[in-house]
């Protein structure tokens, strides 16, 4: 039914370093606080557009916030 995402993110740590609250970040990217919590906890994979918006708030690249594991050969 719901399969775990392999995409991980460091939103929480970056957000806390920046001194932003969940509510403030959610407001700046136009989602509810519950959605931001779900993204931080890996319970929801954001759209590419939302991922870019989140990265842009912190002034960093997408790869600095979101990570996808290398395929093991």
């Amino acid at each position, binding site marked *: *039914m719901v399969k775990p995402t392999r995409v991980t993110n460091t939103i929480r740590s970056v957000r806390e370093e920046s001194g932003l609250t969940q509510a403030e970040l959610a407001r700046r990217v136009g989602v509810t606080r519950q959605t931001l919590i779900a993204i931080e906890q890996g319970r929801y994979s954001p*759209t590419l557009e939302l991922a870019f918006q989140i990265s842009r708030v912190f002034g960093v690249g997408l790869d600095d916030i979101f990570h996808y594991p290398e395929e093991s050969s």
Partner: protein
Amino acid sequence: MAYEERNVWVGLIVSLLSVAVYIWLVLSAAGGGPLADVDWVPFMVWTIVGGLVVSIGVSFLWGRIMARRNPDDVGTSDQRDRDISHMSTRVGQAFLLIAGLGVLVLCAFEADWFWIANTMYAGFALSSIIGCIESVIAYRRGLV
């Protein structure tokens, strides 16, 4: 709890209650006799209309109460809400399809109106209830 999640919970509870009341009314009216003899139309209409009215009323009141706690969350929905809604709609449509096929079969065998109407009603009810359950699971456990 987000605005849209609250509405899903209200929809789920009201749907369950509405179906339970309808079944109870029909069984009470039948009194152990044939179900097809029951005048089911008023029961169905009133439980559907009543369910809609109660659902809207409870959503409105719950929203007003939550608005006092967090005014920013009032009436807001986002991409995750839309994704969850699409997912639950797809799940619910499966039951409408099954009910539609059931209705066709019943019509082919010239079944009583009672069984035709109630097969479609069961499809709508299951579509709504299962869709709401899927949504609640997605809100609670995640949608990835």
